[in-house]
């Protein structure tokens, strides 16, 4: 369980994180989604005691991070898989972690096995690791102390599709055992397949917070007909608001049942009728990204 309350960070005149509040519940995977530079990493550093917040507080398992005894045994943290000494081997890095946490030596070998860094790879220096291997090592390090909570910043970065599939399974089973997972990403589709709950941040402000189902369904229903004009008339008469997409489909603020009933009454032949699949979320996300991109150009 992670609780973030009104967390803020100001750098000079720039408000990097602005009164961010959300919760990550046990037994679920919470996706922390936002474009690059939206404040995800800063928020995660504040949650783990690395960056002092300008205001607000956060707790993990009901306790501020700095007051957790032996935090590695409660929270697995991966903030940057590349932030490791290139001269150490993967096994050595896990061994240092295991020593601080007071774990038995075999735990290191177990974790290397679990993340698929076979004996030989574990003994290579991380300077020779690919980004995907570093992510696997980072995840091994986060899981080392058998924590109840995971905080992972962009853990899918650099993983190949098989690696992403693997990680999804790993995090799902971690959550199914009652664990709390918070992971960030700047890619909607990457996080959509893993997360149960989404928290969207843009320019340091939370812009959406809800279960994945809620946020995706909020987008409405997509409908397509043989005669688009007839469909439009039908929707107008029925009093539903809608938007036209460039390929002739309509995204309507109504349920599938309502639209099916209306089109049947008006004799409109429907060729496609389905949930809009987060088109709204994607639009919102694209808008956030585009605004930030513009900002960078003018800066």
């Amino acid at each position, binding site marked *: 369980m992670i609780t973030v309350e009104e967390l803020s960070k100001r750098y000079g005149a720039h408000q990097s994180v602005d009164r961010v509040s959300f919760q990550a519940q046990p037994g679920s995977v919470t996706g922390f989604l936002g474009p690059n530079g939206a404040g995800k990493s800063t928020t995660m550093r504040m949650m783990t005691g690395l960056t002092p917040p300008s205001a607000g507080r956060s707790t993990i398992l009901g306790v501020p991070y700095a007051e957790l005894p032996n935090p590695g045994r409660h929270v697995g943290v991966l903030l940057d898989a590349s932030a*490791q000494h290139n001269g150490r081997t993967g096994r050595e*890095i896990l061994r240092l972690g295991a020593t601080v*946490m007071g774990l038995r030596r075999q735990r290191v070998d177990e974790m290397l096995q679990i993340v698929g860094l076979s004996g030989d790879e574990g003994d290579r220096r991380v300077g020779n690791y690919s980004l995907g291997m570093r992510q696997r090592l980072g995840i091994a390090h986060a899981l080392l102390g058998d924590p109840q909570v995971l905080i992972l910043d962009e853990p899918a970065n650099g993983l190949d599709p098989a690696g992403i599939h693997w990680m999804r399974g790993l995090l799902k089973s971690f959550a199914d055992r009652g664990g709390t997972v918070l992971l960030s990403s700047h890619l909607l589709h990457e996080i959509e397949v893993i997360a149960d709950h989404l928290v969207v941040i843009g320019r340091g402000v939370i812009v959406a917070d809800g279960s994945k189902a809620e946020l995706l369904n909020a987008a409405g229903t997509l409908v397509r007909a043989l005669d688009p004009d007839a469909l439009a008339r039908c929707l107008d008469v029925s009093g539903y608001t809608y938007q036209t997409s460039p390929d002739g489909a309509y995204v309507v603020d109504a349920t599938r049942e309502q639209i099916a009933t209306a089109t049947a009454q008006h004799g409109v032949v429907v060729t496609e009728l389905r949930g809009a699949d987060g088109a709204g979320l994607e639009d919102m996300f694209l808008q956030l990204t585009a605004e930030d991109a513009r900002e960078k150009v003018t800066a």
Partner: protein
Amino acid sequence: MSTATHQAPIQVSPDPSVTPVPFSRLLRVELRKLVDTRAGFWLLTAIGLITVAVIVVFLFVADPDQLTFVNFVGATATPQSILLPVLGILAVTAEWSQRTGLVTFTLEPSRIRIAVAKLVAVTLVGLLAVVVALGVAALSNLAGMAFMDGAGSWNVGAANVRDFFAVQLIGIVQGFAFGMLLMNTAAAIVLYYVIPIAWTVLFSMVGSLESAAPWLDVNTAMAPAFEQQTFQGGDWAHLAVSGTIWVLLPLALGLLRLLHREVKSA
């Protein structure tokens, strides 16, 4: 009426059986981090090899009547005093240059505990280096007597040994303090070596400053130890003042900086 029907809440408090990380484990990890990278390993190896090499060279080039234990020990003082502080610097700056601080300070959020563990670790390695130097010097003294017709005097006072330890420890703590204050390997190493040179230039150019030198420059204050003399009353006062300026002050400011600095990956 009863709470028996309430669902058991999912555990949202830390497992009470987990206790804080004891200092001994932090120290073990910091000691290990000094030797488990190529940079650390070769630095320590270099310190060891150079210590031995200097003593062997001394054995062959010095006059037989110079081949005494105290002179052998003295020969190791300069190379060790140059290299040991680098160990102190690297122990701190690697957390920033290699960004390992992200892991170090999430596993132990108390930065002061990490700093103390690092300081104790580099101090222990410094002591070990001096002990090795004493051992090699003793062996060489025996070899000098056996093969080089050396004087072989064991005449070394406890004060000599004490000063020898003091000088190396001051150096290593100074390096550590510079590393902590600057948090950058290159800057710390350059400043550590440039400041004494700058002082020497200044003192030789401005004659009136010469008497102030041992008060302002920790290297001048330590000079007696390198001339096989022991520190006397006035020397300790010099050490106390210059050491406060160049060791304790940077150490305090460095700790302050560490406590407030944001630990970032980029």
